[in-house]
């Protein structure tokens, strides 16, 4: 069964069609890449999946259940976690607290338990902190647990955001340009990191990326968007050789000459 299935998803903002008739089915354990030029609608697809936008038409199914129209926090609790293109960490919280935010969702202690620090409260807090520390340890941020997120180096902040998403125990992880702002060397180590967490956490991954070496290196399958429409889909090799894709990225020689002549 597909973990995630989008059928005929369209999103219009007034007269602009950001995503048009988008279809995809992602199977369990897959690592699928979503690429396309700037403004192609990639992040919109993520925002639709996570409930930040409601689709204009079409359906989104997660583990066989409709999730379109649900609120973002409900979708997150069902098991879809995401990261953001331009880091959205809880900056003045420590790395540990950033991760604890989602680890504590299972805590059921009441408001009065918290106010009076009952035994149930203390036991749950202990569990949350223990779980969070373990998670940070697993992703290699164990020694940064008590550092404020904003004081971490950029590469670590990127890792922390992924760790925070993993703290939801997601079935599906959406990574929005995880290698943004990284040099080729850092991108390569990020690739290893992503493959590593997929193995350790058994999570299905859908990622947007501009760094071709990252996408081509780790993805099982790639979908290419341009102006909101899917123009190609297949293995990294197939996509690389697809003429539509080359056109979308490099433009058509003939068109360029025309516009130059007119300009």
């Amino acid at each position, binding site marked *: 069964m597909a973990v995630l299935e989008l059928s005929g998803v369209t999103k219009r903002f007034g007269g602009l069609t950001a995503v048009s008739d988008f279809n995809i089915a992602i199977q369990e354990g897959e690592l699928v890449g979503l690429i396309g030029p700037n403004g192609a609608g990639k992040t919109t697809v993520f925002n639709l999946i996570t409930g930040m936008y409601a689709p204009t038409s079409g359906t989104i199914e997660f583990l066989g259940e409709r999730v379109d129209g649900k609120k973002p926090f409900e979708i997150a609790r069902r098991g879809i976690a*995401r990261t953001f293109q331009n880091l*959205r960490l*809880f900056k003045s919280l420590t790395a540990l607290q950033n991760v604890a*935010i989602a680890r504590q969702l299972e805590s059921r202690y009441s408001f009065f338990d918290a106010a009076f620090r009952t035994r149930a*409260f203390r036991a749950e807090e202990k569990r949350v902190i223990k779980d969070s520390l373990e998670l940070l340890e697993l992703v290699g941020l164990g020694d940064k647990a008590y550092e404020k997120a904003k004081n971490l180096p950029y590469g670590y902040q990127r890792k922390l955001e992924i760790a925070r998403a993993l703290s939801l125990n997601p079935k599906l992880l959406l990574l929005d340009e995880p290698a943004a702002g990284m040099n080729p060397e850092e991108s390569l180590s990020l690739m290893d990191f992503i493959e590593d967490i997929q193995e350790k956490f058994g999570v299905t991954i859908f990622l947007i990326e501009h760094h071709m070496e990252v996408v081509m290196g780790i993805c099982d399958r790639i979908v290419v968007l341009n102006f909101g429409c899917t123009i190609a889909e297949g293995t990294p090799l197939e996509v690389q050789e697809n003429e539509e894709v080359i056109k979308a990225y490099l433009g058509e020689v003939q068109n360029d000459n025309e516009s130059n002549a007119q300009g």
Partner: protein
Amino acid sequence: MAYIQGVMIIICVNLMGVLGVSLLTGFTGMFSFGHAAYMALGAYTSAILVGRLGMPFVVGLLAAAAFAALASVIIGYPTVRLVGDYFAIAALGFGEATRLILDNGGSLTGGARGFVGVPKHTTLPIAILIVVLGAILMRNIINSRFGRSFVAIREDKLAAEAMGINTARLRMLSLAISAAYAGVAGSMFAHYLTFLQPVMFDINKSTEFAATVVFGGLGSMTGSIIACIILTSIPEIFRPFYLWRMVFYGLALVTTIVLRPQGLLGSFEITFEGIRRFFATPFRRRVSAGGGARWQS
């Protein structure tokens, strides 16, 4: 002596209100210019229950908290989804509306002429007891999953939502807690002054709470407490220039924004652990290390 005691009781009253606003503004990132209204609701609820119906003071206090929280939920339901300035403006409108309703409350509230004959119950030891209890409960809330979620919402609402936090519900909870604190402040106030007038709870009072929290440092409970003690006692020290009180507030606020935008303490908290460590460290090392301790949970 009675005068100094009176000032200290007023400090305790203001502290209760400020603790609540500090949670809402400093920790959850929601500005409110209507908290005097929750204080008024608490004051009148308690005055009516204890003064007219002869119930015990404890019932008055709890009912004040409950009624203010209930009112905040009714007001909050349509407004907590509003972001930033819009929420603050909605709160301001609610505050003024409440004052006008109390002004026209007829025999129940005594209208604009005031509510007389509230029994005197708020003595200094009781006031201090309530504030200490209130501060401890507030600290416990902040150091729990609720507190962490509030700060996460303040830091990044969208990311908080993406991490499974029901932001609308938690913003409502923060508002309700802060309203309950303001309600208790109102009850303490009513049973200290024994006389209530709607004009006591106008926008100036709301602004005073918000200004105190900003002055103390957003995201610092101890900062808010220190700021409240300073800002309540200084006008009393300069009693002859009492009319200049609001000028003083404005000046303190502008000075803070210009010279120390993070407020007196920033988001730094003074903790017992921090104080203990401060005195346990030899002076020379303390100077080189910078001293103090940061709040961690």
